[in-house]
């Protein structure tokens, strides 16, 4: 079988569908003139092609393998409206600062459009089975990363979205106009149920809004889940009476089967908990199931992003966390950990703004410096509350509010429980710092620059805050981020 291997798309049908192997470009997966429809799903991949594979062909191959193609021509394509179902790579740009003259092999951004009919309504599992299914192990590319997606309104409308959302969560909690405060119980492993609830009670009574189970607290030999739930709910109610405020503890219902998770969630509800928690590792379908359960049971659903860094951290392969943010907003969680900028975990400020905007805004514009490659209309899906957790403390309050805004849960685990005067004092220090900073911001002060001074002023009458600043005032985590923008603000898309 001979075919014109290096020429363009083969238009003659008989020749096109003759048995044999064709280049993906020739099969129609590369269409530089294609104009995406409003209803198309668009994916943006970062491709590192194998030696000798040109960028257009690599993009076409990704389009092919993530939609209809297999390695050889099949005549059965002709029984279908195959032109429609074929994904179309329509644009390829070289990634700035890669390739000749740099230390990084050439990478390319590829825009690929998928017809809406390729996807089942309301199913993250189905969407991802195509977009990140086989294609990431495909030999024609050395490495592949899913950077961003444009989800059409038509598809978004088939998803429930966040069970509760920021607006309703705040109304239920009766807490407005300031970040919420949380902490993760420490040590994360080993406490008995009774000892565990002590930490919860002290932190809530001292001034936090929420305490949280850690991601790997499920039901271990040292503490069964029922004991944890019973003692935590006791702590929550006692703290609510002591302060006159609504309080909560994220009860982690993550477990080995859906049946177990439903059982734990039902028990949390029967005890009167306002919030439960799941881990990202339970999988997309389990997350969607729990989001539906949460909507039906007036429950706030917290998601801990356990596991995400296994595929989101390295720049050349895997997927960007902003895509996880999009999928999780569709899947229907109310909280998701999305970075702190100043804490101990990975996070470039510009990238994190992109994540936060993706979770919280009703519409985001394309903004390459924030890693957002598309305009995205969220079609009235509720807003997700981002959670900032990991190595943050009261002394950074001005930076946290500057970078993260007010619709966020700030979680100070060590910064509460490790306070030299005790857990209640730690919680009070955080809350005083928070309220002082919000007040200063609203008054129009230059709180980012005057932050340390604003905290010192409050520390004059609040000794727990003074102790917190004396203990942690100089602690910072200044490591370089691995996941950074490829574009500086002055660059254009095709630069």
């Amino acid at each position, binding site marked *: 079988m001979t075919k014109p291997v290096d020429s363009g798309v083969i238009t003659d049908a008989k020749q096109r569908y003759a048995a044999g192997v064709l280049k993906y470009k020739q099969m129609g997966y590369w269409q530089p003139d294609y104009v995406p429809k409003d209803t198309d799903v668009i994916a943006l991949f970062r491709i590192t092609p194998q030696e000798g594979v040109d960028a257009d062909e690599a993009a076409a191959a990704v389009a092919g393998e993530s939609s209809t193609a297999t390695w050889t021509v099949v005549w059965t394509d002709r029984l279908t409206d195959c032109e429609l179902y074929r994904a179309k790579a329509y644009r390829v740009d070289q990634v700035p600062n890669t390739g000749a003259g740099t230390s990084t092999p050439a990478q390319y951004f590829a825009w690929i459009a998928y017809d809406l009919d390729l996807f089942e309504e309301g199913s993250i599992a189905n969407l991802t089975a195509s977009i990140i299914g086989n294609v990431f192990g495909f030999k024609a590319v050395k490495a592949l990363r899913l950077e961003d997606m444009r989800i059409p309104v038509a598809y978004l409308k088939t998803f429930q979205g966040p069970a509760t959302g920021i*607006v309703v969560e*705040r*109304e239920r909690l*009766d*807490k*407005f*106009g*300031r970040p919420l405060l949380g902490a993760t119980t420490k040590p994360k492993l080993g406490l008995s149920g009774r000892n565990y609830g002590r930490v919860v009670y002290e932190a809530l*009574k*001292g*001034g936090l809004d929420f305490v949280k189970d850690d991601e790997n607290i499920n039901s271990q030999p040292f503490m069964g889940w*029922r004991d944890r739930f*019973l003692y935590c*709910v*006791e702590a929550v*109610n*006692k703290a*609510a*009476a*002591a*302060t*006159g*405020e*609504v309080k909560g503890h994220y009860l982690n219902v993550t477990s080995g089967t859906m049946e177990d998770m439903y059982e734990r969630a039902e028990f949390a509800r*029967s*005890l*009167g908990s306002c919030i439960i928690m799941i881990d990202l590792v339970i999988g997309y379908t389990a997350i969607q199931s729990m989001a539906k359960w949460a909507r039906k049971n007036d429950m706030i659903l917290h998601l801990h992003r356990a596991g995400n860094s296994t595929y989101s951290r390295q720049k050349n392969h895997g997927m960007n966390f902003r895509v996880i943010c999009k999928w999780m907003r569709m899947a229907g969680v109310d909280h998701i950990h999305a970075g702190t900028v100043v804490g101990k975990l990975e996070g470039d400020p510009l990238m994190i703004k992109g994540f936060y905007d993706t979770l919280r805004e*009703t519409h985001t514009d394309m903004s390459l410096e924030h890693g957002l490659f598309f305009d995205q209309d969220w079609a*009235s899906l509720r*807003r997700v509350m981002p959670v900032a957790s990991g190595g943050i403390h009261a002394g950074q309050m001005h930076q946290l509010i500057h970078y993260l805004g007010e619709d966020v849960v700030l979680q100070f685990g060590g910064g509460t429980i490790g306070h030299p005067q005790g857990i*209640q*004092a730690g919680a*009070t220090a955080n*809350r*005083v710092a928070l*309220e*002082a900073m*919000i*007040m200063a911001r*609203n*008054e*129009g002060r230059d709180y980012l620059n005057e932050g340390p001074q604003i905290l010192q002023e*409050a520390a004059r*009458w609040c000794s727990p805050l003074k102790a917190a600043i004396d203990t942690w005032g100089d602690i910072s985590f200044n490591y370089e981020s691995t996941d950074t923008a490829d574009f500086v603000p002055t660059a254009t898309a095709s630069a």
Partner: protein
Amino acid sequence: MMTNPQQRITQGQFSFLPPLTDAQITAQIEFALRQGWAVSVEYTDDPHPRNTYWEMYGNPMFDLKDPAGILMEINACRRTFPQHYIRVMAFDSSRGWETPRMSYLVNRPDKEPGFRTVRMETEGRSIRYTTERLRSGD
């Protein structure tokens, strides 16, 4: 008596700070007005955490854009109900929010009796909790 370190109810944005002065209240009103929000004054003698609907001291002031005028309303409410809890709220009517965006206390009774936890033991080790308001003298 409240048993938390603050010894007072800590609802609202600024309950951990010293009581707000009129100048501080005015600055927060100005902030709300800059965002285009309508300021409202509400009062109650029942600050139960699930008591959503405090009494309105008039409707939200949609058309009053003068911070001094709004402060006068707040102070009139404080004069009328000196032993009540009074909160200032700001309502955002923009699409996607349409909800309160601020809430802070500007008045408290001299004595804050607080709440107690009432436990009703039910099946197994489960307990049904009720947060019950205490009155002065309890």
